[in-house]
């Protein structure tokens, strides 16, 4: 039972590995940005919208949080096909990931929004700010700063979960791994390499978010304390 590890047979595929990393990053980045914007809007709807809208968004969030991403990906992919629209697997992947991460972002942002005291909003109102101005300057800005660590964790998880979209043949790192291991028959080595690449990605992405946070949240950078 001796197994000869042979990583060298993977060397010729370095370009494919790199491409896989890049594709995963792209997929995650697009989903993160769209997910954040959508999630923030849903959170506002849930915190401050008319009761019917609160219920609708609430139901949507519950459905997403209580069903597996894999099933959501299949439903988006096959559901769109049923409507007669021929869709690229990558687009379906982005769609499914966005639908998923909007729900989680919504919950995180809602907690952030609700952590702002009513007294703050009253003070802003008494200074003459409009509802929109109050919402942006006094509610959303501190809310985002407060929940930023939770958001970052969520988006790193999203990047790792994007591997699931390989199941509908979207192009990202895991799909690349599947192809390479079937070419080389070096499955174990391939998945070790890809595992390490994901690990490295999670460090890099987390680091990038940290740096971004330091740049944007001046207060945090100067004082070092949470809001």
């Amino acid at each position, binding site marked *: 039972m001796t197994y000869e590890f042979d990583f060298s047979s993977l060397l010729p595929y370095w370009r494919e590995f790199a491409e896989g990393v890049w594709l995963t990053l792209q997929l995650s980045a697009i989903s993160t940005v769209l997910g954040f914007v959508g999630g923030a809007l849903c959170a506002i709807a849930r915190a401050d919208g008319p009761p019917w809208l609160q219920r609708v968004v609430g139901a949507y969030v519950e459905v997403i949080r209580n069903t597996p991403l894999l099933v959501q990906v299949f439903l988006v992919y096959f559901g769109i096909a049923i409507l007669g629209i021929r869709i690229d697997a990558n687009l379906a992947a982005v769609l499914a990931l966005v639908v998923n991460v909007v729900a989680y972002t919504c919950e995180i942002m809602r907690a952030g929004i609700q952590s702002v005291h009513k007294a703050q909003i009253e*003070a802003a109102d008494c200074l003459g700010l409009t509802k929109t101005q109050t919402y942006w300057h006094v509610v959303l800005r501190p809310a985002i700063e407060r929940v930023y660590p939770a958001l970052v964790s969520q988006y790193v998880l999203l990047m790792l979960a994007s591997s699931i979209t390989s199941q509908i043949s979207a192009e990202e790192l895991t799909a690349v791994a599947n192809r390479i291991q079937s070419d080389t028959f070096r499955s174990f080595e391939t998945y070790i390499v890809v595992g390490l690449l994901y690990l490295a990605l999670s460090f890099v992405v987390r680091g990038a978010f940290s740096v971004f946070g330091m740049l944007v949240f001046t207060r945090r950078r100067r004082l070092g304390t949470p809001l």
Partner: protein
Amino acid sequence: MSAVVKLSNVHKSFGALKVLDGVSFEVNRGEVVAVIGQSGSGKSTALRCINALETIEQGSIEVCGHAIHSDKLDKRALRLDVGIVFQSYNLFPHLTAEQNIMLAPTCVRKLGKKEAKDLARDCLARVGLAEKADHYPEQLSGGQQQRVAIARSLAMQPKVMLFDEVTSALDPQLTGEVLKVMEDLARGGMTMILVTHEMGFARKVATNVIYMRQGKVWETLPGHQLENPSTPELREFVGSEL
């Protein structure tokens, strides 16, 4: 002399609890009116009604020509004319002192960034905190935060300023610095209505003192005559506070 603030027979209840029971008084331009009384006497509620933060069931309130509680009230215009400072300062924690002050002038009066910054520095200097412009609220003491809150309201150049027990949450040694700022404002001719427990301040600075009890205006007298109240209830109240 025109009344800047005029309450006429105002009634308000919170559910079954009657909080304002026919309150009427007037404040003229440049006057400083102190509203005193026990907790639950309705003084803070009256103040909040003046600024349209609470609704009323009966009566009328007129501020700077605005008919509060009428359907046609332009709330935005009211907010430009009336400034309010709260007991818990309510500074925005994610903004520096300077940014706190600049926010409303840039958003509401549409000032440019540089103009707003200069205005903020001026207001901070007026309350004696010019060197704290770059500090965040959590780096300031309670008294300093309250002075920034006053500067923040001042920056909008209101015609009337309301003060809702602004020193009650402060340690005694920090109260003095806030009262000094308020005294300076009064001497500068600002029309002020303050709900306060500071009897010494009321006697020294207030044009008129209104004593409220059980939701009614129990007695009104000039500030400097605060040691000689007519009603026994006020006599007892002043005696217990001083």
